[in-house]
């Protein structure tokens, strides 16, 4: 990794250079993994299955091309800039269509900018992907603080609110006076908060996870069949799939020692998200049948990025900050301000729960776009980049 020439705006071009010895060390560690005994069940109910992780590890050490991350990221213009004391890494691709709409899109956990790479073409160069020039975006893909090539905050307080402020500042530095924001997972939290902060120039937001209903003090209504199904799905997630959330929001440092020292421990931790994505990813390794763009290489790219940047603990800490912010808001007893600017939302069928239109409209007073699509899950941009890009275009069309 290296930074080069500084500029007047404090934005510096950035290129990744990964020292060979760090790859060697990683390979050596994968090869000498000490394994636990096999889980006692035939499904994912005790966690990431041994056979899945052993196949991932074999692929990682033997077949994976460690040059991929460097090649994929360095093919795009990357920059860093210090905002509020933290070095923020971002990809910035301007469309050749000058009046394209500026869009800042935020990844989540256990993701990174890697999740979003396949959307760069469709969003910035729509005519090459069956769209029209009017669909073009100038695209900004930042790495969350503590993630990827962004710096790690050295102090507490980097919650979603501060991140959202930093994103507004970033767009300001890039001289975008009118822009939109998008996010899924943690990125949806950032987009939601941006919508509530409503910084000058922000025209609207689009999300693919309804963050207002996860961990809400009062559960959303279950009046219709659709709503009841979504409630059931949330309940399943919070009773069996929520472990990473609990641990990371309370003891990120404790699990951090494992995530920094064991590549396979890190890989398992990152694979163990929702049921839908787990079986899709597991299938890519065990059965050689990837779903959509969730290929072995793409999955391992993301894990390798976490490893090489040593960000397992700092990424987990984001949840600790989230927990602190939620506790503070709860103690203050104050509801956050409404996001009254235009909100677009897409429900992907494999998401943790399928957000019904009724819940989205209850969460946001000004829903200008809602759609439920046929394919894709929690990592929608990663899994179905073109379908996802269609949604982002459609969601923001009315704002151009």
């Amino acid at each position: 990794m290296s930074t080069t020439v500084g500029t007047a705006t404090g934005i510096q071009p950035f290129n990744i250079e990964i020292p060979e010895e760090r790859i060697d060390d990683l390979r050596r560690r994968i090869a000498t993994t000490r394994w636990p005994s096999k889980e006692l069940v035939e499904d994912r109910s005790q966690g990431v299955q041994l056979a899945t992780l052993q196949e991932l590890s074999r692929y990682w050490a033997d077949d994976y091309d460690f040059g991929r991350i460097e090649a994929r990221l360095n093919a795009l213009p990357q920059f860093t800039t210090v905002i509020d004391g933290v070095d923020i890494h971002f990809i910035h691709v301007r469309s050749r269509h000058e009046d394209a709409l500026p869009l800042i899109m935020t990844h989540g956990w256990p993701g990174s900018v890697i999740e979003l790479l396949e959307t760069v073409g469709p969003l910035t160069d729509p005519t090459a992907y069956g769209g029209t020039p009017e669909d073009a975006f100038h695209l900004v893909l930042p790495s969350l603080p503590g993630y990827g090539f962004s710096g790690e905050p050295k102090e507490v307080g980097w919650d979603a609110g501060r991140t959202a402020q930093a994103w507004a500042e970033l767009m300001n530095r890039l001289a975008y006076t009118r822009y939109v924001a998008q996010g899924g997972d943690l990125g949806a939290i950032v987009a939601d908060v941006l919508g509530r902060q409503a910084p000058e120039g922000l025209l609207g937001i689009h999300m693919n996870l309804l963050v207002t209903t996860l961990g809400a003090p009062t559960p959303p209504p279950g009046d219709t069949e659709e709503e009841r199904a979504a409630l059931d799905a949330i309940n399943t997630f919070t009773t069996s799939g929520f472990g990473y959330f609990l641990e990371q929001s309370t003891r990120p440092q404790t699990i951090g020692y494992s995530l920094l020292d064991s590549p396979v421990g890190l890989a398992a931790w990152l694979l163990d998200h929702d049921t839908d994505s787990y079986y899709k990813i597991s299938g890519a390794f065990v059965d050689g049948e990837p779903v959509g763009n969730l290929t072995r290489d793409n999955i391992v790219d993301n894990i390798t990025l976490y490893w090489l940047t040593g960000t397992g603990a700092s990424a987990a800490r984001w949840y600790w900050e989230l927990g602190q912010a939620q506790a503070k808001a709860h103690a203050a007893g104050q509801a956050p301000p409404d996001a009254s600017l235009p909100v677009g939302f897409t429900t992907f069928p494999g998401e943790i729960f399928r957000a019904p239109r009724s819940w989205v409209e209850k969460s946001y007073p000004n829903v200008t776009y809602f759609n439920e699509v046929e394919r894709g899950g929690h990592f929608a941009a990663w899994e179905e980049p073109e379908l996802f890009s269609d949604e982002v275009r459609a969601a923001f069309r009315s704002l151009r």
Partner: protein
Amino acid sequence: MAEKTTAAPRPAPLPAELDAGAEDSTIRPFTVEIPEADLRELRARIAATRWPDKETVEDDSQGVPLARMQDLARYWLTEHDWRKCEARLNAVPNFITEIDGVDIHFIHVRSKHEDALPIVVCHGWPGSIVEQLKLIGRLTDPTAHGASASDAFHVVIPSMPGYGFSGKPKSTGWGPERMAQAWDQLMKRLGYSRYVAQGGDWGAFVVDQLGLQAPDGLLAIHTNMPATVPADVDKASQAGEPPPANLSADERRAYEQLLRTYRQVEYARYMAARPQTLYGITDSPLGLAAWLLDHNDADGQPAAAVLAGLDRTTSANGELTRDEILDNITLYWLTNTGVSASRLYWEYKGGFFNAKGVSIPVAVSVFPGEQYQAPRSWTEKAYPNLIYFNEVDQGGHFAAWEEPEVFSHELRAAFRSLREWSLS
């Protein structure tokens, strides 16, 4: 690890003996002998640890702090001597016997006092038999420790399935209920037709289950983590509600302690949901050490008593030391039981501290540093056949480890009435 089978070699079984219910009930002497290569590999891994950055707070609120872990790693690598722990373990008779399809490791020390009371002592998580070693002399040889011959115990200390030198279950179902059945079988296999049982942490769940099963010959249980909370209070505390209005001062204190505990058990919730995903604690010694250290007590998370132990290098009266804490962590590492031990949380679907309905004789010691200090009022209702209740003034969640002297005294006192009763 090496097993010495002193019994005559068994002939190959005849087909007629191969019926489904047949189990080898041989008790095999066992000696701990970790190959030097395993210790070398452990040291190499410790030396090669890749560390996270420092936490962003100045306290324990994000987990075990970096400076604490780095200090521990340095000591582990350069000063801790596993062979000393091995010698301590091998100084007492160790055995293995198969019960219900799993190899069960246990320490068994008979008192020289023939009519001593047999006791099975059950460890918990993140503990092991290492927690109980300081009890053995005090319980089996009371006259050497200022107590009388009539206080003697024959001591049995098993390793739970999936823990230490016991085998790792290959199928589901090994929760505290099944362990209780196994410990009863173990005591009977050792020829003890009358015995008592003791436990803290998971051991407390196991002895509660023993109490519910009330097998023939089980005279009483002693618990230092009693499950006494009335159903309505249990429900309110789990939901994090403010204390119910009708609580006494003791009960109110206990309630507040329960609320605090439930905010400190995310590790337990994690292992209950996703034990297999903890590959990192199998592959990283420091990952394992941090995971095991981050258990709370009333005074902190990590447990204040354990942090105090980490700062203690010598011990005059059995106080917990840094070496003992590393003995325990090293035992988990060398037996590769980080994940298999975690599965116990997954197996158990019952409540934490709710009264379970045990009606056999029960003795309770309340230690001030425990998750909550069980009030006498709740304890009497939860255990209607309460034969002993005492609140001591020192010791916490790892009572046997922290305060072996007080703990041994409690066990003697707890079961004294029973001996008088059973001998008369």
